[in-house]
C-alpha cells in the first residue's frame, strides 16, 4: 500500500484553516460549512489513497510522491484521516475561539478586543 507522507500534516493544517474560516465568518450564515468542507477534504484524501492502492493516480495525486508502507499501517493511517483533520480544527478553535464572539485562549492576552460582543440571538 502507498501513502503520501505529508497526508497527516496537511490534513491537520487544512483542519486549522477551515475551522478558523468557519469560526470567523461562517458560523451564522453557513453553520454546516465546516462539516461539508471536512467531508469533502477527507473524501479527497481517501480517494487518493484508494487510487494509489489500485495503481491509478488521479490528477490531484500526480503532484506528490507516495511511499510504500505495510497494508495494515496504511489502512490505519487512512482511517485516522478524519481525526487529524478534526484535531487541527479543535486546536485552532481552542486557540482562537469557535465563534465570532470568541477569542480562544489568546483572548485574555490581547489588549484590543477583536471579538464581537454577546447578544441574545432572539434580540438580534
Amino acid at each position, binding site marked *: 500500500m502507498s501513502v503520501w507522507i505529508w497526508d497527516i500534516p496537511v490534513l491537520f493544517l487544512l483542519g486549522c484553516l477551515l475551522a478558523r474560516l468557519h469560526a470567523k465568518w461562517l458560523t451564522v450564515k453557513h453553520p454546516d460549512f465546516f462539516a461539508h468542507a471536512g467531508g469533502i477534504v477527507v473524501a479527497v484524501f481517501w480517494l487518493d489513497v484508494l487510487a494509489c492502492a489500485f495503481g491509478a493516480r488521479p490528477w490531484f495525486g500526480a503532484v506528490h510522491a507516495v511511499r510504500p508502507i505495510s497494508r495494515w499501517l496504511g489502512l490505519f493511517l487512512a482511517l485516522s484521516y478524519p481525526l487529524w483533520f478534526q484535531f487541527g480544527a479543535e486546536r485552532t478553535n481552542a486557540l482562537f475561539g469557535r465563534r465570532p464572539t470568541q477569542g480562544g485562549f489568546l*483572548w485574555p492576552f490581547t*489588549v484590543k478586543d477583536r471579538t464581537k460582543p454577546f*447578544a441574545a440571538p432572539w434580540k438580534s
Partner: protein
Amino acid sequence: MPKRALVTGACGFTGTHMVEHLKQAGWDVTGTDLEQGAHGVYYCEAGSLHPEYYSDFLRNLGVEFIPADLTKPETLPPLFAGAKYDAVFHVASLYDYFAQWDVLYKVNVEGARNLATEALKAGVGRFVHWSTDGVYGEIKNPPGTEDDPYDPPNLYSKSKMEQEKVLWDLFQREKLPLTVLRPAPIYGPRHRYGVYHILYALQKMGTGILITWYPKKHTLMFPSVHSTDLVRAALFDAENDGAVREAYNVLADTITQPELMAFLYEALGLPYMRLPVWWPAYKYFAEIGLKIIKGLDAKARRAGLRPKIDVPMVEYITHQYWFSNRKLKDAGFKFAYPDPRKGLWEYIAWCKERGWLE
C-alpha cells in the same frame, strides 16, 4: 411601626438587593446613591464591563431616593434630616480593581468616615458596613477566620482595610454601633462585575482547561456568596444585638477551584480538557501568566483601554483565598445557597436569559 433603614449604594448591584430584601421584610427604606450622571466620575468605565447603575429599580419598588455623594459631606445631612434610622446599611463602595488609589481612598475611606460621622450625629441604631474578605489577602493557614490579620493584596482591598480601620476607630472613640461584613466575591441577579468576569472570560475563550493540582494539598479554593445570602446576613446581623462590634465573613461553603470550573464548563456548555499538573510547575507558569497579565494591564492603561480581566481577579490562579463562615453559622444564620453551584446555576440561567452569555 415599621423599622427604618438607610441603604447607601442603593442603585448598585448589592444595594438593590438590600433595598428589595428590606422592603420584603417590612422595613421603611430610604436609598441613596450618586446621581446617575455623576456615576462615571468615579468609575473607570473604559471597558464594557463595569458595575451597573440601576436607577429605575428603586422607583419601581416605591423606595424614597435621596441622591448624595459620600465624598461631599455637605450632601449628607439631607439623608438624616427628620429621619431616625434603626439601621444604616453602608453598601456603597468604589468596587473597581482598575481604579487608582487616590479615587479609592476618597470614595471608600473618606466617604465612609463622612457617612459614619453623620450617622453618629443622627444617633442611628446600627451601622452595618460592607467590607470584603480581600482585606485578609492570601491565607497562610486556611481556612481563614475573622481573627486573621489584614494583608490586602491590591489597592481596592487596601482601601477597604483603611475604611474598616476608620470605622473601628469611630466604634471605639464614638461608640458607633458597628457590624462589619466581609463578603466573598458576590454573584446573583443584576451582578456584572467580579464573578461575572469568570463566566464572561470562559465564554470568550470558548474552550476550558480543568487544572487539578498534585499533591492535592495545594488545591486552590474559590470563595463566593449569593447576593440573597449576603443581604439576608446583613439583616440578620442588624437585628441581632450581639453582632455589634463584630466582623463576619459572609460566604457560602467554599468549594475547590477544580469543582467550580468543572461545574462552570458544564453549565456553560463549553468543551474542556483535564490537565493534572505538578504544583511547583503550575506555580512557576502561573506566576509567568500573572506577570504577562500585569504587563497587559500596564499596556492597556497607556493606550487608554482597560485590560480584559483586572489583575486582582487573575490572582485567584495563584493565591489561596479560603475563608471560614463558621462564626456566622454559629450565630444562627442559615444560608439559602450553602453550595455555590446551586446559586451559580440560577445566576447563569439569569444571564443567559438576558443574552449576557450567549
